[in-house]
């Protein structure tokens, strides 16, 4: 009978699982865990790691002692004059922007990817249609930066080399500065993100849909189910584990997202996200301690999704 822990369907000797796990654990420890632990210590120190972060406190200003870099990382972008200004500045801070990115980009990529995977399933030229959605993933980011220049470019009176403004001025309106108008600009950047990453979601979701046994779909079709019912009541529940995996992966990707913002606006005009802010602090400003503190906060953001995955993990094993 099923139980909440793993199912040892076969007898296994003590230690066999560790033989399978060990190579991976060793490599990950050397290349991620050890360097990370090594670096986290810097977040409690000053900019060049020579003294405690507490020494960077200045008189007459709030100070969190050894957590000073965390104070900076969490509050520096906020305007704490009043509750209202704090709230407003939060939504243009890197954290507020990352929340916008998480909400819009994860929904956008997973939603469009799922719908598209179902729509093109079994049509003629399915491979070609999928390749078109996948293509942006294959373009290196230097190339993608140029591509979107031709979409968002802001030309003034004479020429529009950006297609969006060409359409808008063609209709008789003034050109729009897509990348410098707050809060429009963050959403324009998210559009680029959706364009790039939908192919990823679609590929994974499409292969999950294809693993659904044909008989189940046909049987419900005979029962008179509409396409939408098949989609929402059969396909989606069956591939739910894969959807969770795809959502988790996209959340991770969005949290780490750096290139799009860095190349297109450099975090200017209120478009900073956590990863670009970390980069600016670490390298442009040579504040390694502050940069590392931001990185640690970034890692903590993932905890709710870890919980979600563990729940799913136990539930799935209890069912089989």
């Amino acid at each position, binding site marked *: 009978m099923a139980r909440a822990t793993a199912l040892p369907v076969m007898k296994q000797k003590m230690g066999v699982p560790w033989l399978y796990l060990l190579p991976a654990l060793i490599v990950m420890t050397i290349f991620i865990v050890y*360097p990370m632990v090594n670096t986290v210590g810097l977040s409690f120190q000053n900019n060049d790691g020579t003294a405690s972060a507490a020494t960077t406190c200045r008189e007459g200003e709030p100070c969190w002692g050894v957590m000073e870099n965390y104070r900076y990382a969490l509050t520096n972008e906020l305007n704490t004059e009043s509750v209202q200004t704090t709230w407003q500045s939060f939504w243009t801070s890197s954290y507020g922007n990352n929340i916008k990115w998480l909400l819009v980009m994860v929904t956008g990529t997973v939603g469009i990817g799922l719908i598209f995977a179902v729509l093109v399933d079994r049509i003629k030229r399915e491979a070609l249609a999928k390749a078109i959605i996948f293509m942006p993933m294959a373009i290196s980011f230097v190339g993608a930066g140029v591509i979107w220049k031709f*979409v968002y470019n802001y030309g003034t009176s004479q020429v529009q080399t950006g297609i969006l403004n060409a359409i808008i001025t063609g209709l008789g309106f003034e050109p729009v500065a897509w990348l410098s108008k707050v809060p429009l600009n963050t959403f324009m950047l998210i559009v680029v993100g959706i364009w790039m990453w939908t192919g990823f979601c679609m*590929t994974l979701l499409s292969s999950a849909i294809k693993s659904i046994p044909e008989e189940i779909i046909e049987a419900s079709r005979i029962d008179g189910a509409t396409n939408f019912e098949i989609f929402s009541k059969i396909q989606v529940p069956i591939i739910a584990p894969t959807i969770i995996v795809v959502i988790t992966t996209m959340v991770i990707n969005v949290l780490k997202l750096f290139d799009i913002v860095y190349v297109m606006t450099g975090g200017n005009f209120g478009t900073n996200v956590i990863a670009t802010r970390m980069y600016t602090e670490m390298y442009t400003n040579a504040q390694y301690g502050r940069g590392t503190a931001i990185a640690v906060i970034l890692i903590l953001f993932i905890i709710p999704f870890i919980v979600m995955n563990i729940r799913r993990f136990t539930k799935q094993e209890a069912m089989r």
Partner: protein
Amino acid sequence: MTTATLSKSLSKPRKNREPSNLGTGIGIVIILIIWLIPTIGLLVTSFRPLSLINTTGWWTALDVNNGPETAQHPDPNAGYVEKLSTRFTIDNYVDALTGYRGTGTYLEACASGIKPLGMNCNLTDLVNPRGMGRAFINSLFVTVPSTILPILVAMFAAYAFSWMDFKGRYAIFAILVGLQVVPIQMTLVPVLRMFAGMGINGTFPAVWLFHTGFGLPYAIYMLRNSMSTLPKDLFESAYLDGADHWQVFTKIVMPLITPAIASLAIFQFLWVWNDLLVSLVFLGGSKPVMTYQISNMVTSLGAGWHLLTAAAFLSMLLPMIVFFALQKYFVRGMMAGAVKG
């Protein structure tokens, strides 16, 4: 639906059919067009000279009379095709391929008889150290092992996570999810120090190892998902036949999760192929990869950015070939057939 057609449709899955209705078909086409427009812009631009790129929109490329006076055909009465032919160029591709760095174009410079620095003005320029040819080979050296190694190691770990019982599997799984979000910048300095101590700094194995380490959490995470969806009966019957874990792993699991491995391989390949930072830090400029050469075409003030349009297309070719080549693993019935076999 009659019994006859039903049994037919059950035994032979329907394939290659048209979209179920017109609305769906139009919807698909609209999404595809939206997705394609930016890339088409890049493609058209990659065949245009800089003076026209900067002064006219790419969608007006077929208008032969727009743009600055200097870009106009000397004979205003020339035919349309004649005029059009002077408004497109393959210079961007030639310059990108040969790695030409100069104010003019490679073809002009060679035609003038003064060879550009480091160029021979013959086919050998395709493999010169600045060109894309050699960078292509280096990129392959970096990418192929960096794709295979993490998948290989991850398969074992994923199998243990899905079908073995051991202490701490939830804790390790939680850490696995968390490790995926660690920013690469946090790990560069300690790892570089370690590589320098081992004396493998600037070699290919250094890059392979790093990509393996960073690719593993996601690879294990994804493979575990596909392995754990395999039906339990499969394992039980194998066990009754006297198979051990190793046999189940190699004979049953590996073939069955080929589609998952294929999609993982595509993405790992892409990420490594398009990576600049890791190869820059651990491999350096002495073994330049494609992304290095691409970003190197533009000066610090942005001059030469039009070459990026051509270079981006060249670097996109191989990933697209890989995508199409692995398509055959994304077909319905893979699993059913494999189980019977």
